[in-house]
């Protein structure tokens, strides 16, 4: 049931000027330099190295390491936020996870503070601790090297380490998920500890304790230890806040510290009683989750639903007004920005600019299938509109049969005002997609977005949605070169699928492509399975497990498949370029016989130099994905369907299916820089199209483009898609209506997801030339938001060259003549 009581859903009475606390906190945030934070790495390593032995059961050993850190974690208050708790010991920190990806910065310890792209400050003492104490301990023990030793440096790992075929995220096993905060907020962590203790005692009563039962006992014990760590952190926050209240001279600060001392005495240990307690409890739990697991797309989920009962109760009692609700939500938004990823410089240059992508989901329908939009939905939209921060990644669910038009219009308006957020998810299709994956209807209706665009039944489904990122263009090149790839030289990488010069039909090439794809997907999955098993041996997640439905009931950690539903996600880079290259090959070589395969290969090897006529033909006369050309539709559907069937044939180490998706973060830019010319006319080393978006400038008519992408078989895209569109401007009421109607048209076509940048080519070119004028310019990349200035050059160019459509005509706006050399085809 919709519960909107706001007289004005736009909350026009409030601007950032009316909310000075948020304004000040936002200014602080933007002025902060990111710093490396070693606090977690130090305490976790110290415990494992000096305070425990490897004979202890791994479940409790890691839980104790986590509790040791949380109990010692410094209670810090850097500003006047209404919320207590910080992810790291720095105002804006990048935590080090040496067991996962942290070791990659070792070579940069001397230079990381001064590097060109997104420097991270690191002081000398912490530099030395990392170099002499922390990193040496993990040399043989991090997930990657443990797996390598255990599996004897398998072929799949060596292919992964070439980085140009697929990325099997070793951190992906435990990240990219949506925990359930409801029970923790409603009943408190002490309740969860009590539940685990009861279960442990029940098992212990058995006359004979089996091996399986022993594992369950260890798991329940680990849950209690880990949660006690989170409570200890809350208590430390309370104590420090009380001390600061005693010292504060400013009466407002004194009151705020006193209030936080009181709140943290209650939460997260005990049930939250007010909106402020609920939000602070949720935030402390989020901090604790990041103490255990890497800060990548740990998504808070449907906050307008989770927090509504506290808001409603506070409003009913008259203890909170709209301004205070806006401030509390705003403080949470800003807190979600208090940390960033730790990545080496090359990764920043190739793939950088991403935040930690904690996705928040609003709107849509509830578990009973009714409109779920409420006051908090609009409050969260308002906060997003006025703060315009990189995180959280806000996602608006929209059910065109149940949600009111005014909600859709308001979402459209916020996109226009922020120029980028929120992203829109189509409830009608998303729910069907999840049902098709075996999720019960009421659970599918309660889905939330993970990180970029992936879907999860919040707190029930553990999806590890970023397990694999596979480069489809690399497969295309393998098929073109009989299992070799230009970037890896003469080395036989994939199977020998025949010399395409001898192929008599396109079908023969398609068969070769499929064989290469089967092989590469097999390699990627094999490695992901090895990583999964490594986690099962050495790195459980008892704390995160306690925020899911399933693990506490079954006595099984998430990593062993304890959640109610399980899956692993595989996303794909270069979809549109691959489809267009298949189209071009089919038409030019086999249909019109414009060229032979050999001539095509010669043109590609020469990057089209000396082959200008063929280049023009491939660019202008071959079918393009995103248009209504039947050949393009056939090839896009065939690829989507083939990948779906292929992945669904595999079962992961937790008993779930693999799910394909099409979102690329910034990898389409990085991988594009490492690929040769393609038959679709794209030149060597140019970026690929993002997500599931057609190639820039290929789909000239918006309506046809939306129908084409929306018409893809959505049930075959269970791990989500990112369609990135751009409008140069949306001005006035009439434009806004047209924009909102375009959204409606797309969801009715069956598209899963759509996101926008409202910026002209000229604006973006100016932003690239004059970064100082666009310090907080927010853009949508491929599933998440980033500050334009943080992106690498290739990614900036990709966003600039994305097709911009005129909102009035729906036709592609002309690309500025002076800058045509930026296009991948020029």
């Amino acid at each position, binding site marked *: 049931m919709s519960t909107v009581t706001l007289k004005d859903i736009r909350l026009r009475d409030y601007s950032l000027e009316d909310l000075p606390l948020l304004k000040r906190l936002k200014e602080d945030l933007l002025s902060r330099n990111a710093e490396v934070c070693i606090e977690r790495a130090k305490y976790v390593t110290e415990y494992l190295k000096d305070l425990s032995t490897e004979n202890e059961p791994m479940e409790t050993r890691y839980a104790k390491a986590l509790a040791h850190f949380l109990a010692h974690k410094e209670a810090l208050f850097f500003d006047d936020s209404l919320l207590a708790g910080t992810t790291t010991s720095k105002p804006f920190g990048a935590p080090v996870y040496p067991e996962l990806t942290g*070791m990659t910065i070792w070579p940069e310890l001397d230079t990381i503070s001064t590097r060109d792209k997104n420097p991270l400050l690191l002081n000398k003492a912490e530099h030395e601790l990392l170099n002499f104490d922390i990193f040496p301990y993990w040399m043989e023990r991090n997930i990657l090297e443990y797996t390598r030793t255990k599996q004897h440096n398998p072929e799949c790992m060596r292919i992964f380490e070439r980085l140009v075929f697929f990325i099997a995220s070793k951190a992906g096993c435990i990240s990219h998920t949506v925990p359930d905060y409801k029970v923790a907020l409603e009943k408190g962590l002490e309740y969860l500890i009590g539940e685990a203790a009861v279960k442990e005692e029940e098992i212990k009563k058995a006359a004979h304790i089996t091996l399986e039962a022993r594992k369950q006992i260890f798991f329940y014990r680990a849950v209690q230890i880990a949660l006690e760590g989170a409570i200890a952190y809350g208590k430390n926050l309370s104590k420090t806040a009380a001390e600061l209240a005693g010292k504060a001279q400013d009466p407002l600060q004194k009151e705020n510290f006193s209030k936080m001392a009181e709140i943290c005495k209650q939460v997260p240990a005990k049930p939250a009683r007010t909106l402020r307690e609920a939000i602070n409890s949720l935030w402390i739990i989020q901090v604790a989750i990041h103490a255990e697991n890497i800060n990548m797309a740990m998504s808070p989920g449907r906050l307008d639903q989770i927090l509504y009962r506290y808001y409603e109760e506070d409003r009913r009692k008259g203890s909170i007004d709209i301004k205070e609700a806006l401030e509390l939500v705003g403080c949470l938004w800003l807190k979600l920005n208090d940390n960033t990823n730790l990545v080496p410089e090359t990764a920043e240059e190739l793939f950088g600019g991403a935040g930690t992508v904690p996705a928040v989901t609003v709107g849509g329908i509830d578990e009973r299938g009714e409109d779920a939009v409420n006051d908090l939905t609009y409050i969260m939209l308002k906060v997003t509109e006025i703060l315009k921060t990189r995180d959280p990644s806000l996602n608006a669910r929209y059910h065109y049969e149940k949600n009111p038009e005014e909600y859709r219009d308001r979402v459209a308006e916020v996109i226009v005002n922020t120029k980028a957020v929120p992203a829109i998810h189509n409830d009608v299709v998303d729910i069907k997609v999840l049902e098709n994956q075996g999720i019960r209807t009421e659970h599918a209706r309660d889905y939330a977005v993970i990180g970029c665009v992936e879907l999860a039944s919040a707190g029930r489904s553990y999806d590890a949605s970023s397990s694999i990122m596979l480069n489809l263009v690399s497969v295309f090149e393998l098929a073109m070169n009989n299992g070799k790839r230009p970037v890896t030289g003469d080395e036989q990488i994939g199977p020998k699928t025949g010399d395409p010069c001898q192929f008599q039909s396109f079908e023969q090439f398609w068969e070769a492509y499929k064989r290469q794809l089967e092989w590469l997907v097999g390699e990627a999955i094999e490695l992901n399975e090895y990583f999964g098993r490594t986690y099962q041996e050495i790195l459980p997640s008892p704390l995160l497990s306690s925020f899911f439905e399933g693990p506490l009931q079954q006595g099984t950690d998430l990593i062993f498949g304890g959640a109610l539903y399980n899956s692993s996600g595989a996303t794909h880079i270069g979809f549109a370029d691959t489809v267009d290259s298949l189209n071009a090959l089919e038409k030019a070589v086999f249909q019109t016989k414009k060229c032979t395969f050999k001539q095509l290969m010669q043109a590609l090897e020469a990057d089209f130099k000396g082959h200008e006529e063929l280049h023009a033909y491939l660019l202008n006369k071959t079918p393009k994905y995103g248009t209504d050309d039947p050949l393009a539709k056939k090839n896009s559907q065939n690829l989507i369907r083939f990948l779906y069937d292929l992945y669904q044939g595999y079962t992961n180490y937790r008993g779930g299916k693999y799910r394909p998706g099409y979102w690329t973060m910034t990898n389409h830019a990085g991988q594009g820089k490492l690929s040769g010319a393609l038959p679709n006319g794209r030149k060597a080393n140019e970026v690929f199209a993002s997500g599931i978006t057609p190639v820039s400038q290929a789909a000239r008519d918006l309506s046809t483009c939306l129908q084409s992408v929306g018409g893809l078989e959505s049930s075959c895209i269970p791990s989500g898609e990112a369609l990135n569109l751009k409008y140069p401007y949306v001005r006035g009421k009439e434009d806004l209506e047209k924009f909102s109607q375009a959204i409606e048209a797309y969801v009715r076509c069956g598209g899963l997801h759509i996101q926008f940048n409202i910026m002209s080519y000229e604006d973006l070119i100016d932003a690239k030339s004059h970064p100082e004028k666009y310090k907080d310019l927010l853009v949508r990349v491929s599933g998440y938001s980033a500050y334009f200035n943080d992106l690498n050059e290739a990614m900036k160019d990709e966003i600039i060259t994305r097709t911009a459509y005129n909102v009035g005509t729906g036709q592609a706006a002309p690309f500025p003549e002076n800058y045509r050399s930026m296009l991948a085809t020029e």
Partner: protein
Amino acid sequence: MDELVNWISLRRLRVKREQKKFLDCMGSEFAEEFLQLLLRLMSLFFVLNRNFRRNIQDFNGRYLFKSRDNRITVAAVFKNKRLKVYKKEIDNTNVTITFRDSKALMNYLLSPKPDILGSLLRQDVVINGNLNYVYKFAYMAKHLQLMATGKA
């Protein structure tokens, strides 16, 4: 006592000489002798610089460096707070680093910044074995470079 002072003075002189050769090599077009010079300088610094020596305090590592054309094969063995260099293949390595040419290896480790991922992506350098050993070596090489240029 005089002998010790002389020994230290000679070592320091040698460090200066090797340091100059190393920096000249880094500025040269082909950097043919880069690896040998790097390891020689590293070895000297381990002897003379206590803080740098801490890097190999409890460290055992066996590295094999090979150029793709097999013209260069160098093994570096860290053991008992010492670095020993061999111009031959060794067994039981923690990691084998195969590089396109000396310049590629130099770019990979040092210039213009530690660029491990970039080199992997360009396939200039292929690693077989434990990446953390490479990260540690790259750190030491970078630190050495900074010391040699007076920046650390």
